[in-house]
């Protein structure tokens, strides 16, 4: 099977994703307090933490979707406000799976949307874009679903559609926010294996937010635990060794919420 490896300029040494001492405030709450994180090319990073601890916010700040009150977020070395090479970043937002089941769109039409960033405003999507979309669907194993309406697919199949959409842009980094919510355990396993394959065989940089610490520890190379600040950043096995969840969130545990 012919596969595409992300294109990269040989002079590009800036880390794909970097947040430099950032703070984010929502409705008077300090969601992120001086958070620093650098993701290098080829890394497979998992971000975990309790609900409301700022994991999704961290992703959104890194992508420039929410404003920061201190520090700077950078993509490929450029401050997010000045970053316009949207095709280099493949983003799968949270609740992407929760599409209105009656929305009239086929899987292929959704995956094709992934090409908009590369094509730009006012340009029509052409044969090259369709080929890229179909190719992405093949890589992800859902080519047979292209004419199916998105609402008729299972949670796992829909998740793959959104992954294919992110891949269709031929990005250099994939950023996924809670991609396995609403996906059954078997499909979840297959999904992680797919990400592992993309990282290992195609050198795709991957940043993944999940509350599913256990599953994540088995597949990522680096685990970052967030609870308004970074409480852990290292190898998954060291996280377990240091007492994992309990120890890291000892002082900040929310009442009633223990574990994933």
């Amino acid at each position, binding site marked *: 099977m012919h596969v595409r490896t992300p294109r990269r300029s040989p002079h590009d040494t800036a880390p794909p994703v970097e947040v430099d001492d950032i703070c984010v405030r929502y409705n008077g709450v300090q969601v992120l307090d001086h958070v620093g994180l650098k993701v290098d090319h080829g890394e497979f990073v998992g971000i975990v933490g309790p609900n409301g601890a700022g994991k999704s916010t961290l992703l959104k700040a890194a992508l420039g979707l929410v404003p920061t009150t201190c520090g700077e977020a950078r993509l490929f070395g450029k401050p997010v406000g000045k970053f*316009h090479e949207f095709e280099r970043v493949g983003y799968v937002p949270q609740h992407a799976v929760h599409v209105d089941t009656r929305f*009239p769109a086929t899987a292929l039409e959704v995956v094709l*949307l992934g090409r908009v960033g590369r094509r730009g405003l006012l340009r029509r*999507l052409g044969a090259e874009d369709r080929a890229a979309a179909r190719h992405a669907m093949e890589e992800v194993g859902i080519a047979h679903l292209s004419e199916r*309406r998105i609402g008729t697919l299972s949670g796992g199949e829909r998740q793959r559609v959104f992954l294919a959409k992110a891949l269709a842009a031929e990005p250099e980094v994939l950023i996924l926010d809670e991609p396995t919510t609403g996906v059954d355990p078997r499909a979840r396993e297959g999904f992680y294996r797919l990400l592992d394959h993309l990282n290992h065989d195609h050198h795709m940089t991957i940043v993944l937010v999940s509350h599913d610490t256990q599953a994540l520890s088995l597949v990522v190379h680096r685990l970052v635990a967030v609870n308004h600040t970074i409480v852990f950043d290292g190898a998954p096995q060291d996280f377990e060794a240091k007492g994992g969840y309990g120890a890291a969130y000892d002082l900040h545990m929310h009442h009633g919420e223990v574990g994933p």
Partner: protein
Amino acid sequence: MTAIDLFLQYEFLQRALLAALAVAALCAALGVYVVLRGLSMLGDGLAHISFAGVALGLVLGLYPLALALIAAVAGALIIHALRAKEVVRGDTAIGILFTAGLATGILLVSRSRGLGVDLSSYLFGNLLAVGARDVATVGAIAGALLLILVVLHKELFYVTFNEEAARLSGLPVGMLNVLFTAATAASIVIAARVVGVLLVSALLVVPAATALQFERSFRATLAISVATGLASVLIGVWAAAEYSLATGASVALTATALFALVVLVKRALPRAAA
């Protein structure tokens, strides 16, 4: 002389029908986005707001269609701003403004007598008596807006599907939303000319709702919506001319009948695998 003979003979009727078809195609296509964004009441709302513009035009002796356009676009942008700044919810904003618009129109009308006929043609539509100038204006606006829809097809689809993802792909979402709102306003005004202020939803919402019943791809949905809108106008206008019925109502009832037909046929057929 049958209705068809009439249309074949009189050029002004042919022009009026062509303008109506252009408007139907435009509203049917736009309507798909409107319905999917949950803005179905917007059509009605903006039509009522445009009524204030029409009344003002008639009272001042200015071209009513132009003032209707200004009122509708202004109203749409105010609704858009109220939603964006989260002052009130979308449907509330629509409700407030359409009351204001209609009331303004009524006030203006009540202060000047003798507007009966002209006003009635705006309220209920009187396509076949539309003057040449209005036909040309309506046709031109419909053509321009259709062009915009075609050019911005993928952008509008993306924004309607997932605004956040659209923003992240670099699309100017704010501007696209404003443009969409203004285009909807302009479409409503010209639709009102065809079916009247009160029945604008017949062209904007009903064909789209019918197409959505088919549960197909986005492309297919747009195509079916346009086909349904065109059919509604053709059949409705023919029936109105043939049996001396009010044009607007005839078109609206045809559109509704088509919707009912599709729903009934869908229920009757065994469920096919999607």
